């Protein structure tokens, strides 16, 4: 029986929530009112169940208009009936209003991830139910097909695609329209349309997402293509590993057939087109078009030489048009919106958008569609949200295993077919794998080579044998057994493969290796020459990531394990073998080891620096006398500068038996440790303990001895009888700002300021307004020192943002806590004052393009100048070596940045003279200076013994400290906080801020160490720790 026809339906919620807020009364009132107005034959009243609008209840919906009323009360009913049911108007006061909590949320287009995206091929993905053709149609689906079939000739369709400039999205970038034309013009009645959905690159999932999220767009594109080229049948070649994509494609094909959009006489025309799915078994080579076609035919998936191209001789030797999933998905939009619309998006020669699967070390992994011509940096940093955990961007691999990597210096490259080619990379089909500083590029390229090599079909020799040989070489290099000749061999094999291989797989297989070699050759050389993996991933070369990360190579797990057992003296001995300053470094080291600690991958890194400090503090009162390693020698060595590099070099040479004299210009020893690092971070008595240790090794330190004033280089090497000289003069000269008026009194350079404070010449800062310029350690130290000297206000001016500050994050945090006011993205342009500084003019900056370091360059904003009133300006934007003293020593060359030119053996251009530390490296850290000191000592020793060492290496043995507790007990242990002096106490004095761990905390913290060293010993099969070792410890 047919239902009576009602012109309106009134739905009232009868759920529990709405009933509680009075919906029963509303229903009763509505019933009565309908009856009273005689509307019972026109309007039906329906009780519905709860729809979850309880907060707005009782709710009422009036169909067919779909008017939504909320918080309706019985008293509102007559108005609703009068206004809505009789007059057809909406009662505004009852209509739903959006609550404020919703408005607080950003729209998608305001989220950085989406703000730079333009969605053409992905327009429906995530928006529609892919299993419902109606939802596709609701968003304009199949309009393009009907437009093409009913109002365009085949030639017009091809012409439209040609004019759009669409280039093949499979990676090669061939013009799609031209390809269609070839197929259309090829002789023959039977033609095919094939879609390449054999997406096999590691880290690529663009095609899968389209097939899963919007299968109809691909189907529609293929039908249009079939119409244009004159094909009646099409195949989608999709790998069987994509079961969901295949399932949704099948559903979509069936639905399109039901609607007559696919099959015979599409939309009532005489055009018929049938679509089949061919499931591929997952061979990577089947992504190559001729291999793919062979596979559809049921033959072995092997490529064949081209020409003939598939457009002429393809599937079953018939003309075949083959495009990628993304190319087809673009077609409907081009037909509907026209070629002009499409060609106006993106870059001139690469119109439209590019779809990338963004993966790897990037915050927002996912699928993005961006206009062609966007820069690589925008994709990775703006859309991708940058690198997780504040690590440094290293490179991005495009084009998957057949592409190449692009390093930080090319972040400004435009992403389109041609620009990417210029930097030696390829667009590829859309995989984009981001890697950070922790990725070894040798290992990374080996990964891709392993993949491509395994996927080689074996048909042609260059690919089959070349790939295998190249992989053997790379494996050798990652194991530390490579030679420099290997690099030449790699290049030679690559050339052979590129020219000799049959298909793209073989020709492009060397791509990732060649790109890595092009941009990261130093890393290859480090593996070969130094047997080191700088990123710390090559298993054979890296005992533990912490050891590898420490510039001076301290055996971290060993001293941590011994500290856990309370064996501090032994722990310290191990530490001092490589770094004689555990007391100092326990306080001031930026702890490169912690940054790479594997525990940090699980929760937080082990508090290595703080544990070190605890360990060293325990033995403060037991002076260390460095052991002699070789007998006494006659040849004397002079070290210029008593900083960490000079003192370490002196110590190591003294341990080898050489008489060593250190000449220091200042009245104190310690270099920057004494006159750079403020006392609240490194108390002088602590520093002096470790300087005394060095003296105890037999090193003589002469203070107030300035080169060029008290003696010259010639004096040292001739009259004074030194056989070798180590220049460890540091970088004590501050770089100038380069702005007007900067020589005015009241401008006080950071290094000088800190030095004067350290030497007791306390600058008058009390009550003054101070501005420090810079973002490094010196800037932060100067700012915090000024505060402690009683400055009324301290500003810190930095031209970039906080995340880009080179200063140690903990220091920046502490400075902010102590009340220093940061001005980011500002730069001084002029010092103001007539006979003394009264202010500084600042200019706001904005971040522009990326520089070679991968950071965005600050660019001035014209007209944004403003004045900050100050009494003292402290520039701290960088340092150089104070080389004036070397003026007299001749024959020594300098680099453009003011450092001393040295070779890999740290020898300067003058015979017998070496350089180490900041003077050779540029401003660095204590631990890096120590590493240089160790190394230069080896170089000097070799020189004095008449040996030739090209790459000196300071070698000590590792210690296998057994594990004596159950590691599982510490699986959930948390990293403790370092106790600190309260802020109000610390800002008025120079007392040490960090208070140190107590014994229990420190020893327990040590047990969070995952002991990567023992794992390495075990997997590498060398001297694994035995049970008897453990028993020995237990006794």
């Amino acid at each position, binding site marked *: 029986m047919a239902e009576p026809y009602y012109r309106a339906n009134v*739905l009232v919620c009868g*759920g529990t*929530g709405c009933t509680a807020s009075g919906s029963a009364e509303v229903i009763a009132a509505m019933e009565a009112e309908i009856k009273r107005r005689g509307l019972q034959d026109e309007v039906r009243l329906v009780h*519905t*169940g*709860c*729809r*979850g*609008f*309880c*907060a*707005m209840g009782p*709710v009422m919906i009036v169909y067919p208009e*779909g008017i*939504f009323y909320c918080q309706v009360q019985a008293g509102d009913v007559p108005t609703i009936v009068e206004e809505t049911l009789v007059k057809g108007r909406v009662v505004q006061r009852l209509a*739903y209003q*959006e*609550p404020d*909590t*919703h408005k*607080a*949320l*950003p*729209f*998608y287009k*305001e989220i950085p991830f*989406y703000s730079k*995206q333009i969605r053409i091929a992905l327009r429906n*993905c*995530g*928006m*529609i*139910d*892919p299993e419902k053709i*109606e*939802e596709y*149609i*609701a*968003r*304009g689906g*199949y309009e393009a097909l*009907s437009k093409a079939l*009913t109002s365009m000739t085949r030639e017009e369709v091809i012409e439209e695609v040609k004019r759009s400039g669409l280039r093949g999205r499979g990676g090669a970038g061939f013009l799609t329209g031209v390809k269609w034309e070839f197929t259309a013009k090829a002789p023959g009645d039977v033609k095919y349309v094939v879609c390449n959905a054999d997406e096999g690159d590691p880290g690529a*999932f663009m095609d*899968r*997402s389209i097939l*899963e*999220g919007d299968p109809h767009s691909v189907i529609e594109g293929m039908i249009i293509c079939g119409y244009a080229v004159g094909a009646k049948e099409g195949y989608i070649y999709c790998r069987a590993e*994509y079961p*969901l994509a295949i399932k949704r494609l099948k559903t979509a094909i069936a639905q399109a057939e*039901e*609607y*007559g959009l696919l099959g015979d006489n599409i*939309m*009532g025309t005489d055009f018929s087109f049938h679509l089949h799915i061919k499931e591929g078994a997952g061979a990577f080579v089947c992504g190559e078009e001729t291999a793919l076609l062979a596979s559809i035919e049921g033959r072995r998936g092997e490529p064949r030489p081209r020409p003939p191209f598939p457009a002429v001789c393809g599937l079953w030797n018939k003309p075949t048009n083959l495009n990628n999933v993304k190319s087809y998905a673009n077609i409907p939009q081009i037909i509907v919106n026209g070629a002009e619309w499409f060609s106006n998006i993106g870059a001139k020669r690469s119109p439209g958008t590019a779809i990338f699967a963004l993966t790897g070390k990037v915050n*927002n*992994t*996912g699928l*993005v*569609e961006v206009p062609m011509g966007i820069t690589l940096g925008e994709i990775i940093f703006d859309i991708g949200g940058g690198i997780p955990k504040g690590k440094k961007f290293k490179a991005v691999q495009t084009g998957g295993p057949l592409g190449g990597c692009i390093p930080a210096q090319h972040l400004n490259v435009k992403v389109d077919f041609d620009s990417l080619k210029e930097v030696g990379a390829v667009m590829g089909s859309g995989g984009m794998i981001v890697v950070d500083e922790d990725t070894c590029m040798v290992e990374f390229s080996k990964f891709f080579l392993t993949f491509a090599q395994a996927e080689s079909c074996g048909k042609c020799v260059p690919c089959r044998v070349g790939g295998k040989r190249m992989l053997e070489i790379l494996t050798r290099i990652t194991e530390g057994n490579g030679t420099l000749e290997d690099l030449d061999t790699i290049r030679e094999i690559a050339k052979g493969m590129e020219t000799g291989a049959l298909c793209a797989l073989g020709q492009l297989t060397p791509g990732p290796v060649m790109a890595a070699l092009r941009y990261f050759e130093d890393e290859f050389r480090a593996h070969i020459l130094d047997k080191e993996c700088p990123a710390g991933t090559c298993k054979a070369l890296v005992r533990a990531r912490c050891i590898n990360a420490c510039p001076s190579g301290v055996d971290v797990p060993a001293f941590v394990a011994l500290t856990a057992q309370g064996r501090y003296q032994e722990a310290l001995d191990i530490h001092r073998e490589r770094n004689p300053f555990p007391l100092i470094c326990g306080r001031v080291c930026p702890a490169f080891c912690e940054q790479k600690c594997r525990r940090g991958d699980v929760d937080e890194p082990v508090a290595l620096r703080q544990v070190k400090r605890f360990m060293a503090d325990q033995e403060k009162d037991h002076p260390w006398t460095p052991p002699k390693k070789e007998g006494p020698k006659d040849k004397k060595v002079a070290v210029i500068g008593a900083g960490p590099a000079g003192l370490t070099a002196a110590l190591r040479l003294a341990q080898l038996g050489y008489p060593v004299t250190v000449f220091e210009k200042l009245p104190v020893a310690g270099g920057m440790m004494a006159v750079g690092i403020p006392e609240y971070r490194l108390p002088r008595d602590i520093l002096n303990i470790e300087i005394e240790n060095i003296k105890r090794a037999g090193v003589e330190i002469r203070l107030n001895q300035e080169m060029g004033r008290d003696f010259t280089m010639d004096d040292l090497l001739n009259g004074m009888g030194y056989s070798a000289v180590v220049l460890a003069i540091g970088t004590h000269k501050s770089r100038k700002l380069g702005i007007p008026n900067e020589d005015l009194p009241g401008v006080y350079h950071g290094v000088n300021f800190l030095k004067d404070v350290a030497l007791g010449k306390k600058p008058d800062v009390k009550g003054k307004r101070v501005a420090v310029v810079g973002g490094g350690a010196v800037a932060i130290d100067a700012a915090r020192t000024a505060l402690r000297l009683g400055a009324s206000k301290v500003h810190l001016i930095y031209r970039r943002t906080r995340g880009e500050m080179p200063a140690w994050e903990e220091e920046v945090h502490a400075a902010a806590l102590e009340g220093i006011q940061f001005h980011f993205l500002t730069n001084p342009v002029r010092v103001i004052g007539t006979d003394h500084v009264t202010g500084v003019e600042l200019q706001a900056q904005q971040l522009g393009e990326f520089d070679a370091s991968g950071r965005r360059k600050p660019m001035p904003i014209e007209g944004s100048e403003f004045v900050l009133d100050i009494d003292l300006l402290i520039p701290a934007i960088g340092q150089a070596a104070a080389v004036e003293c070397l003026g007299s020593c001749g024959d020594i060359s300098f680099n453009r940045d003011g450092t001393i030119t040295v070779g890999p053996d740290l020898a300067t251009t003058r015979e017998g003279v070496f350089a180490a530390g900041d003077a050779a490296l540029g401003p660095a850290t204590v631990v890096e200076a120590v590493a240089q000191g160790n190394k230069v000592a080896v170089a000097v020793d070799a020189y004095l013994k008449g040996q030739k060492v090209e790459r000196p290496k300071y070698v000590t043995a590792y210690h296998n400290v057994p594990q004596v507790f159950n590691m599982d007990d510490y699986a959930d242990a948390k990293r403790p906080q370092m106790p600190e002096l309260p802020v109000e106490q610390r800002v008025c004095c120079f007392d040490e801020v960090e208070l140190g761990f107590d014994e229990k905390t420190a020893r327990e913290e040590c047990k969070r160490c995952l002991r990567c060293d023992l794992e390495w010993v075990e997997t590498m099969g060398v001297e694994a720790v035995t049970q008897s070792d453990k028993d020995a410890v237990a006794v």
Partner: protein
Amino acid sequence: MPKIKSLEELKKIREEAQRDLRIRTETGTRIIIGMGTCGIAAGARDVMHAILKELERRDIEAHVETVGCIGMCAKEPLVDIEQAGKPRVTYANVTPDMVPRLIEEHLVKGRVVQEWALGRLESTGIQ
């Protein structure tokens, strides 16, 4: 299902489909779950079951729908809630144990759970 024979018939189906969608979005509750491979791998199926269970427990009628990947794979499982003409609010990294609170706060109390919400889309999926 009738075969589409002309542009007009296609338009008719489109209008019907749009009306159906509009009714669902303007007068009902849609809960939309990202069910691409990325979503499923991140646990979207369990989330969907939890949603269905919670709706049943509370006896709430809602359209539970699935969509493909919207691109933010790192944030999967993504669950969008669109209620009666309000913007479509996206929740990220949803787990089954978050579901009862989502339904309680967002549907029943009408408040967005700010700490889980990622963003919003203009009301209705129709362009």
